[in-house]
Each structure stands twice: as C-alpha cells, then as structure tokens.
C-alpha cells in the first residue's frame, strides 16, 4: 500500500516541480496599475494607465523626492484588451491591474456612451470590483491621471481616499463602485449616476514633480458634481445643489452640513446620520412617489446674534428650517431629473418593482414616460440631538 502511494506521490511531485509555475510572476516583474483612464480619440480607445513605481514610493517615505512616484503609459486601440496588451510593448513590466483604485472615463467617451468599456472591466479576472468609477469633467481622463498629488504620493490613492473621505463628510459626493454602476445600468427601474472629477489650476504644471514640492499646488484634482446618465450616456452634470438633494434622497449622505438662514447670517447644522426610504405607491392610474428622510443632526456653528439655544422653541425652529432646506434641495433634484433630464436616477421604478411587482412588469417597458409625471412627496424629519460643547453662543450675549 505504502509503496504504491510513495511512488504515486513521487511521480506527482516530479510532475509538479518539472512543469509547474505557469502563473508565477515576481513582484518586481509586475507594473502595479493604480488608475486607469479611458478616452475616445478618433473612434479609438485611448487607454492611460497610471503605474506605481514602488521603489520611488519607498524613497518618498524616507524623505527625498527625486522622481515621480508614478508613471503613465498610453496606448490606442479599437478594443480595451488590445490597448492594454499594447502597453506591454513599452512598459518593461507586465501590467497588473488587481490593485486598481480609480477608473476614470473621459467626458467625450461618457457622452458617446461608455457601455463598450464596461464588459472588459467586469469580465477580466484581474479587475477586482472594488475600485471607484469617475468621469473627468471638462477634460480628458489622461489629463486627470497625469496630475501629481500632494500628501499621498500616489495620485490614484489620493483620489480614492479623498473620495471616500468626502463621501462621509460632504453631501454632494458619493463613491460609485463599478458593480453598482453596472447594476443600475442593467436594471430598468433606475438610471446610473457617476461622480465627476476635475482639474483645478494649470494641468500642464500638474505633471511635473515640482507640483508636489510647493505648499499650494499649481494643479490639483477635485471631486464635485454628479454626472447623470441615460443608459450609458452622459446626459448632463447636476449642480451642486441638485447632487446634494440626490444624495440626501438616496440616503448616501453620512456627515454633511446644512446651512440654515437666521436673519442675514447662517446657522450650520451638522448631520450625524441619515436614513432615507424611497417608495412608489399606486393610486388608481397615478404613481405616487414618496421620499422619507430622517436626519439626526447637531448644531455646529451659530453666526447670528441673539439666538437663545437654551430654548426648545429655537431648536424646533432650527429643525423646521433645516427640514425645509433639505426638502427644497431634494425637490430641486427630483424636478430636474423629471423635467430637465427625464432620467430616473432616484430609483422610483425600482421601488415600484419592490412594492408592486405585477404593475411594474406592465409599465417597465416605458417607465421612462411614466416617471415624468410621478407626483413626489418629500418628507424630511430633522432631529437635532446635540448642540456642541457650549450652550449659548458668545454672540448671544455680545454687547450690542
């Protein structure tokens, strides 16, 4: 018995050692792609990859910056796969995209329809689905990728971490993972939206290493407005107010600031957590949408004089004002999506599917036209829980 097994194991072991290692790649043979930018140029896809230069990143950590911590490579081809393969002709290392952080689509491509690039990214084994999707606003994706960043040595990491951070602390911004985008692309009850990124400052200066050495960079990247899409095509950019409303309605806002007017000045209310619910009801032949939003907040800043925060009426008033403010934002966004863009980015259709599957199956074909006429009722409920570490503002008792 054992003789038999020993010989079997011996044969196996020799096969393995002789023939193995097909998939081996050493760490110093791979080019780690941190960001991928795709543009459309003359009917061809222009692929820009931002590759990390590990040695350089390590030296940056030790203090000295000599060369750029990342490199970009570009190639053009009709399909993405071909373009990615072509990169190998001038990159000394194998392109490795499992650690991709950002996928940036050029605005031109987005306007023409970005469906054609999605399949490659979802199908490929190397692409994990945890990177963020973004559209380059008013520029090409390649330009975005060329800008070097401060604080974080790798620009793509800077992008993704600032995106993640501002999602938590700034209302209009939200992270979109590729899976979410694809789901929304396929699903009939909702249309996708994607966050935009733009260059502030001089793009050409941003490419140089000196950009990193200054305290105020010549060029930097900023996330801002939201691109709304119909199918895979970019329709328009939402204004900041509208995107704010959109994110409130979708419950994507975690920590944000609501500025409530008081006299000429403002009171800032910080949201602690929000909870939203979108529903679609059927009332005869009419669809009625409701957006219910609960916000827990805290007073963060008081600018106006003579405001007595110790009184419950003041708090109630502030809550009411905040509710109105948010409600207005949401309504603006809904209105814009219904009238201006005619795109259901809120997912009222999805809500209908969930509550009335049979009706949904009848209307899903032309949900588009039904959506325009939905009456939406927005119900915002703000609860101020805390007022910070002091009760009344020093301004309250400031000498007149």
């Amino acid at each position, binding site marked *: *018995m*054992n*003789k038999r*097994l*020993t010989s079997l*194991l011996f044969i196996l*072991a020799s096969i*393995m*050692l002789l*023939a*193995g*290692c097909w*998939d*081996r*790649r*050493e*760490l*110093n043979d*791979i080019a*780690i792609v*941190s960001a991928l930018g795709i543009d459309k140029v003359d009917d061809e896809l222009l692929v820009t990859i931002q590759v*990390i230069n*590990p*040695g350089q*990143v*390590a030296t940056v950590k030790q203090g000295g910056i000599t060369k750029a911590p990342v490199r970009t490579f570009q190639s053009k081809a009709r399909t993405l796969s071909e373009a990615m393969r072509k990169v190998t002709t001038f990159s000394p290392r194998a392109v*490795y995209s*499992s*650690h991709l*952080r950002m996928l940036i689509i050029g605005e031109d491509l987005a306007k023409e329809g970005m469906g054609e690039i999605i399949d490659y990214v979802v199908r490929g084994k*190397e692409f*994990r689905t945890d990177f963020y999707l973004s559209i380059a606003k008013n520029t090409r994706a390649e330009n975005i990728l060329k800008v070097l960043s401060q604080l974080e040595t*790798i620009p793509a*990491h800077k992008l993704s971490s600032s995106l993640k951070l501002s999602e938590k602390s700034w209302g209009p911004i939200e992270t979109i993972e590729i899976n979410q985008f694809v789901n929304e692309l396929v699903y009939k009850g909702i249309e996708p939206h994607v966050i935009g990124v733009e260059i502030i400052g001089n793009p050409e200066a941003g490419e140089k290493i000196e950009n990193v050495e200054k305290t105020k960079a010549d060029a930097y990247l900023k996330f801002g407005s939201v691109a709304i899409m119909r199918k895979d095509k970019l329709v328009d950019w939402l204004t900041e107010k509208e995107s704010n409303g959109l994110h409130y309605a979708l419950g994507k806002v975690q920590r944000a600031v609501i500025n409530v007017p008081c006299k000429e000045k403002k009171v800032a209310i910080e949201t602690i957590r929000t909870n939203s619910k979108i529903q679609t009801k059927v009332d005869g032949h009419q669809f009625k949408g409701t957006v219910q939003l609960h916000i827990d907040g805290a007073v963060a800043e008081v600018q106006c004089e003579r405001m007595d925060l110790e009184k419950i009426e003041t708090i109630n008033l502030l809550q009411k004002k905040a509710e109105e403010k948010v409600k207005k934002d949401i309504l603006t966004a809904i209105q814009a999506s219904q009238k201006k863009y005619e795109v259901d980015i809120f997912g009222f259709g999805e809500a209908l599917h969930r509550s009335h599957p049979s009706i949904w199956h009848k209307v899903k074909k032309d949900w588009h036209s039904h959506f325009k006429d939905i009456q939406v009722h927005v119900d915002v409920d703000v609860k101020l829980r805390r007022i910070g570490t002091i009760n009344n503002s020093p301004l309250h008792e400031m000498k007149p």
Partner: protein
Amino acid sequence: MSFLKFFKKSIDKKSFEQLLADKEKQDSSEQPQSKETIKRSLHENLKKIREAFGNSSDIVTREIRIGRQGEIRVGIIYTDGLINSEANHNFVMESLMFELRRNEVDLKDLAGLTLLNYIKEMVLTVGSIEDVHDFNVITNAVLSGKVVLLFDGYEQGFAVEMKGGKERGVQETTTETTIRGPREGFTENLRVNTSLIRRKIKDHRLWIESKKVGKVTKTEVSIMYIKGIVREEVVQEVRSRIEQIDIDGILESGYIEELIQDDSYTPFPTIYNTERPDIVAGHLLEGRVAILVDGTPFVLTVPSIFVQFLQSPEDYYQRADISSLIRFLRFFGFFTALLAPSLYVAITTFHQEMLPTQLLISLAAQREGVPFPAFIEAFLMEIMLEILREAGLRMPRAIGQAVSIVGTLVVGTAAVDAGIVSAAMVIVVAFTAISSFMVSSYDLAITVRMLRFVFMGLAASFGLFGIILGLVALVLHLSSLRSFGVPYLSPMAPFTLADQKDVFIRLPRRLLIFRPRVFSSQQNTKREKSLFQNENQRKKK
C-alpha cells in the same frame, strides 16, 4: 484490501519464521561453548574466563583464600567500573576474608549446611545472590555489573549483585524545560528511571516487564504499564513487537522506536519520547505503555496521537484557561512553522491581489533588484537557517552562541543590505523559525521543518491551490496513520466528543473526570474509587 492484508501477513509470517531460524543458527554458531558448566578446578575456570574476555584489562580476576588457614581458594571476578567497588570490599571481600577467620568457624562442620550455603546464607551481607553453573551466565553476570565468586572444588559459584560505578545523577532535563513542574529528568540508568516513576505512582498495579534486546549489546528493555487501566491488547502488541526485534545492538530508545513503529513510511513520529518522569507517569495514568531502555534517558510511550506532540506537561500544571490559550497558540505556531514561507511565496508570486495595496507596494519596493525568484530566495534563506540551527547545535556551547548571533544578525542584515534577499523574506523566515520552537515536541518540529520545504515547492508551482492540495494530502496521510491500533488523529478523527475536553483546550480538572477513551481499557474514571469498582465488576463477571 483483503488480499493485501493477506499478502502483508504472509510476508510477515514468512520473514518471522525465517528470522527465528536464522536466529537459532546464529546463536549456535556464535556461542558454541554456551552449555559449558564450570569445572571443579578454580584455576582452570579463571583461566577460561580470562581467555573468554581476551585478557581485557578491566576484567578483574582475583584469587583469595578464606578460612582459618586459608584452606579454601575463592576466585572473584568482576568488571572494574561497573561495580560499586567500595561495597564489594566491605560486603563481599571483607565478609569472606575476615568474618570467616574472626568467627573461628570450622569449615568442616557448618551447622549442617554445606560450605556454599553457609557462605551464601550466613556470610555474604549483600542483597541479591544467584547461583551460577554456566560460563555463559558468568560472563553475562560479569558484564552486567555483578561480582562472581567461584570456589575451588565446587561446580557452582555465586553472582552477587553489586551494580555501581560512575553514573550521571538525576538532573534537570535540558530538552524539555518547563517553568512550572518537577525539575528531575531520567538518567541513563534503567533502575533509576523505574524508581523515578515508582516514586510518582505508588501502586502495586504499576507493572514492569523486562527483556534483554540486542544480541550483542544485550540491552535491558522494560515495558511499564498500570494493570487495569491499560488496554491488554496494546500491552500484548508492544510485547510481541519487542519480541520480534532482531538486531545486534540497541544503543538508544530510538532504535526501538524505529523497529516497533506502525508505519515506517511517514515523516511523523508515531511514538512519543520524553525525558520527564512526570510525563511518563501522566501517560501511564491515561492508560499508555512506557518503554524504558537501559542506557538512555529517553523513554518511549505508546500509543501516541498527533495532538499530544503539541501539548506540554505544563498545560496540566497551569490554570486551565491559560493552558488552553497557549495550546491554541501552539497550534497556530505549528501551522505558521509549516506554512509561513510557502504562503509568502504563493501570495507574492501568484496572488498579489490578496495583499493590501500599501503592503504590496512596499513589498515590491523591497524586491527591486533582488536577483532571485521568491521561491529560490525563500529556499536559500530556509537552507541557511537550517544550517545555522544545526551548526549551533553541534558546536561547543560557547561558540554556538556566537555563531547564532553572527548568523542571524550579521548574515541576515548583510544579505538584505546587499540586495540578495528582501527584508520581508528575512522576517518571514525568522518568524517561521521562532514558530517552529513553539512546537513542543522536537520530533514533530523536525517533521515540520522537513515538510516546510515540500509545501514551498507546492506553493512555487501551484500557488495556494498547491498548498490546499498539499494540506488535504497531509490530512489524508495523517488519517491513515495508526499508533499501536489507535488512529493517529483521534480524538478528532474518529471524533469522540468526550475526549475533546483535553485536545485543543484543557478544561478545568474537575471536568476531566474520565480518562481518554482511546487509550484506556474501560470507560473508567480518573478517580481511584471507580477503578476499584471496575475491578470488582470484572470479578463478578
């Protein structure tokens, strides 16, 4: 399977019969004078003995005269260094030479006794005396530390037990140290060792059977067990396996271990060895059999299961919660020692997507300029580590320290600085080495060291897929092992819920009422009371 078993059996039988035949032949050819009885003439006898030993200088053959007029000539034969010479002077020679003269005994009339009986019963003030008639017995007695007395004119002699000489005393063990627990360790002397165990288990059911093994060395091998707790089949099996040993010399219990283990095609130890009497006592109480071999401080216990190689006696001396935690740590250490380098190789060369990005970047930065593939790098470092370890072991203790410092610090740092290996690899290898020291049994630690290379090979050719397959094969192999009839992986496989109390965790002692079921004969408790109950029940039956 049946025919295979049959096959195996027939081979065993055949070889066994053959062995017996061979043995007889050898015995007859080697010792033709075996049946020779001693002569009446002392002179001739002594001459013959001297010839038999080739006039070896350590064999003392002395002739003295006893009695009032010195009328009886007595030959004293012993091996210098094996006997307690002081006791020999005091209790044998002095008794013979002085007592007889001082008491003015008439050797012709000895209170109705013959001379030899008189000497045996009234003169020699020593414990154990045997009558000897045979030259062969005499030589054996002389070699095992007895003093042989031959009397002129008699075809009979005495072999007086007088074992002594320089031997290492009971000292603290160096191979298995604990913070808490008895400090004593076994010595090379079998009697001392049995006494150490006897002192711990003061019960008449602690039985010892002895046998001489090794045609030339004639080493004494004892098996020890507690009657009533141990399974009779196991004792029988041990007995018969020791019986079947056919070898000229046993120099260490390792010889026995290799000759009686179940399966020789395995890297895993299936017999436990230890230097600590407390472990042996504990094992005996669980119903195992201990095999003691003269001339080595290492005692074997069977049957042995896998988990016990990852347990330490201290587990039972410390609080249960701490012991359990440390046991977990030890299991973890076992797996890291086995897999850490292979996992590193697999992840960095096959599955880079598993690493967090920052870690990947810093690893990649370290690997810039390293000329070898990760596998070769790991392989070189591991080999270097093994060389250092082995060198440190064999070297004089003072130099060993220096070597390990030079090896670890200087070579490691220099290798990283020179860019031959990456710093991460040094960390991995060092961590692996430390982990392998967590494995409490040295035997298992060696196995792990060996298998580590196998897993590295698997990782280098198939990545994690290879490692998983390797692990499955390892578990299959372990499941196929047995140690004296007990499945090696028990009590996990076959799963016995009742025995789980003392495997990965050790429950508090009051919950450990029952002995492990895999070893002991009945489901008897650890408490004495019920052990008697069992005996009573058996009697009733």
